[in-house]
């Protein structure tokens, strides 16, 4: 195990206005837009909220900074009837509009419920657009209750998850099913949905706060970027606690994330941990101890703490861990459990990761060649009327995109 590289970010006494980091949160589909709406009602600060849907009626109900109705031609304002393919076309149709709305963002956070149509189909396209613009991108996805699942829906969840994972820098999965443990039998579906939304919003707030909390800032965008860009899976946890031992308890709560399972920190290569609250000397001591405890890990660890006066007795901790192996999240994670009966997501994503190095250059070249040939045929047969022609070839064709040099 490598020696831990340790870096302590000192508390600064200056107030830094971090408004130069622009985060855009994009809700896609019914679920994504509901979350956006909840964020508006709960006043999510320091971010721009964008709602995207194929269904014009549902969009009308949403309160957000920006709304985009995609696929006016394909979906005609009536949603997709749970066909991700239709949603994908819709998003492709409006690529330019989406691109314009994302422009200027330093980071984009996508929110979608998987298993329906719009979120599952348009999500990966939007992720792709953000990636094409070189914007740091995270996806927060909600996966369905077990009772909702059937063969088809599971397939949609699996495929859209894998596709998103391939395109974003970090994916955070919040299974609806996990919230059930907290409710009684007669809890209404709407209420349960709302509860999950709040959990998601909490985690996202942690992330946003870590980057753009105006106040004393000691973990910055560059750290988060570095963590998210790292190889492997990421983990995000938020924990709160008050009373005695609150720093340590908050930390433990964040790590024992009931939605994502316990990360195996030995695998991590970059850990960003930030505490928020009305920090006391005792809390600082506790944090120092926690730091010592992680001296063994072969990861770069970055601790920060931000004084927030109006939090009373409560301490909140947000952590972002990257470089985890696929199985580092197994055990209690919703990700692997909820879809076991069909095909676990983790396995699906593992497959595409391990298959990459096996591909020889020749195989790849052949694949690229035939993908481009197919695209050329499609355009020709459509008498070049298809609007997609203006979209960069490398961007339109998946395999080309995967074989581009990393710039910057």
């Amino acid at each position, binding site marked *: 195990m490598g020696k831990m590289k340790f870096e302590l970010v000192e508390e600064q006494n200056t107030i830094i206005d971090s408004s130069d980091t622009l985060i855009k949160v994009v809700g896609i589909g019914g679920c994504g837009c509901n979350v956006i709406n909840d964020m508006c009602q709960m006043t999510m600060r320091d971010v721009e909220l964008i709602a995207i849907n194929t269904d014009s009626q549902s969009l009308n109900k949403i309160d957000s900074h920006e709304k985009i109705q995609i696929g006016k031609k394909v979906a005609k304002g009536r949603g997709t009837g749970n066909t991700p393919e239709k949603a994908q076309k819709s998003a492709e149709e409006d690529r330019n509009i989406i691109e314009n709305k994302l422009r200027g963002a330093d980071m984009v956070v996508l929110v979608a419920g998987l298993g329906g149509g719009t979120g599952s189909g348009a999500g990966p396209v939007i992720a792709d657009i953000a990636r*094409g613009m*070189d914007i740091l991108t995270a996806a927060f996805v909600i996966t369905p209750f077990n009772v909702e699942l059937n063969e088809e829906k599971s397939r949609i969840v699996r495929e859209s998850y894998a596709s998103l994972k391939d395109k974003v820098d970090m994916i955070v999965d919040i299974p609806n099913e996990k919230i059930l443990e907290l409710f009684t039998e007669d809890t209404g579906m709407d209420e349960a949905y709302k509860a999950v939304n709040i959990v998601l919003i909490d985690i996202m707030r942690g992330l946003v706060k870590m980057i753009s909390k105006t106040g004393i800032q000691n973990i910055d965008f560059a750290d988060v970027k570095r963590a998210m860009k790292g190889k492997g899976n990421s983990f995000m946890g938020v924990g709160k606690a008050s009373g005695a031992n609150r720093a340590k308890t908050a930390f433990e709560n964040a790590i024992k994330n009931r939605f994502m399972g316990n990360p195996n920190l030995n695998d991590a290569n970059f850990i960003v941990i930030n505490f928020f609250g009305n920090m006391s000397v005792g809390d600082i001591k506790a944090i120092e101890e926690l730091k010592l405890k992680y001296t063994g890990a072969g990861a770069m660890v970055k601790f920060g703490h931000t004084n927030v006066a109006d939090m009373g007795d409560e301490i909140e901790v947000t952590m972002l861990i990257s470089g985890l192996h696929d199985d580092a999240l197994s055990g209690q994670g919703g990700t692997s459990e909820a879809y076991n009966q069909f095909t676990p997501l983790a396995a699906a994503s593992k497959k595409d990761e391990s298959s990459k190095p096996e591909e020889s250059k020749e195989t790849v070249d052949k694949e*690229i060649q035939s993908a*481009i040939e197919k695209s*050329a045929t499609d355009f*020709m047969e459509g008498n070049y009327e298809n609007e997609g022609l203006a979209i960069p070839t*490398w961007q339109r*064709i998946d395999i080309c995109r995967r074989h581009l*040099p990393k710039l910057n």
Partner: protein
Amino acid sequence: MSNQDETIVAAVDIGTTKVVTVIAEIRGKQINVIGVGEEENNGSQQGTISNISEAARAVKASVEKAQKIAGKDIEVNNVIASVGGKHLTGIKSHGVTTLTLSREKEITQADKDRAIESAKSMPLPADREILHVIPTQYIIDGQDEIMDPLGMSGVRIETDVYIVTGATTLVENVRKTIKMAGYEMDDIYIQPIGSGNATLYEDEKELGVLLIDIGGGTTDIALYHKNALKFIKIIPVGGKYITGDLVPALQTSKSITEEIKKQYGLLYEEDAGEEIIEVPDRTRTSTRPMFRKDLAPYIKYRIYELFDMVKKELKNEGIDKSLYGAGIVLTGGGAKLNGLLRFVQENMGGSVRIGVPLQEKVTGRYEVIDKPQYSTVVGIIDYFVREHGKNERLISSSGGFLTKTSDKIKKFLSEFF
């Protein structure tokens, strides 16, 4: 037509990215270039005019620039112009006529015209018009492959023709643009014919040659075989898309991306070695370094796709290599892309060269128009001068333009020389 006399022609090529005007004195069949003017055009898309007033502005500016170079006494009232875009299509047709007046008689122009008229009398949708009728051969009493039947004897004349048509409204937009710019349009030619005429040698056209004009908005294919145009196809993909493909990669403005593409763009990574280039930001206040070779992947997938389209269009039409034994000629600004020649050689085989207006056709300011992006404009002059008679569409029109203009021009010239 009195083309032994010295006359002056102004030709305007309205390309997707630029309008270029060439003013030339015609001496016999020689084109003596005396003025060239170019202006950026933001009024066209994919080869067709989308904004008449902007295109007209560009036309006027380019003509005036050319005039300035030609000398202030050169006045331009009439021009010939080009038309482009994927609405241009060609079809083969066949015409027949019999000489009934006497048994054995010499074939006259009138007989030829009747054969052509018969070939032209095919149903044409109301929204399309005929732009060129190009005879590929005449067949006299069963004997084929006759290019010029004048003076021959026969009873039955047949002709195979290639008819190029265009969407009436889009052709009309060229007329309107020229008119709005303040000129009268005397004739209009499709762009690939211009490019072919400027760049191709006679023996290539005889043996068979494939012309590929890669412009900013379109890639035009023209096949010549046995001295006649056999096929055209316009693919709405050009250099502007390549620039567009690079924008998200370079994260800077379109115009900076365009400059970088022209200066450093390439298809083969190895041609750049470890060279590092500096990419300015949108405001040109700072630059960011990158490996030049990293431009290649972003460009090459578009080029692969474009040439897959070219090959598919040829295959669709049943055109194989035997029909272009003399090889491939690449022209248009896009032909300057570093590595393209090698790519086309490897990808399509045969001999490949970059085409610029042929020196043998041009005197005067040759060094100015000696570039692939000027093939079209020089070629439409050449077509006008040399093959005017072969564009049988003009048979019934008065065709008095050369003399009309030349009288006025001659007056100026006499004061000059």
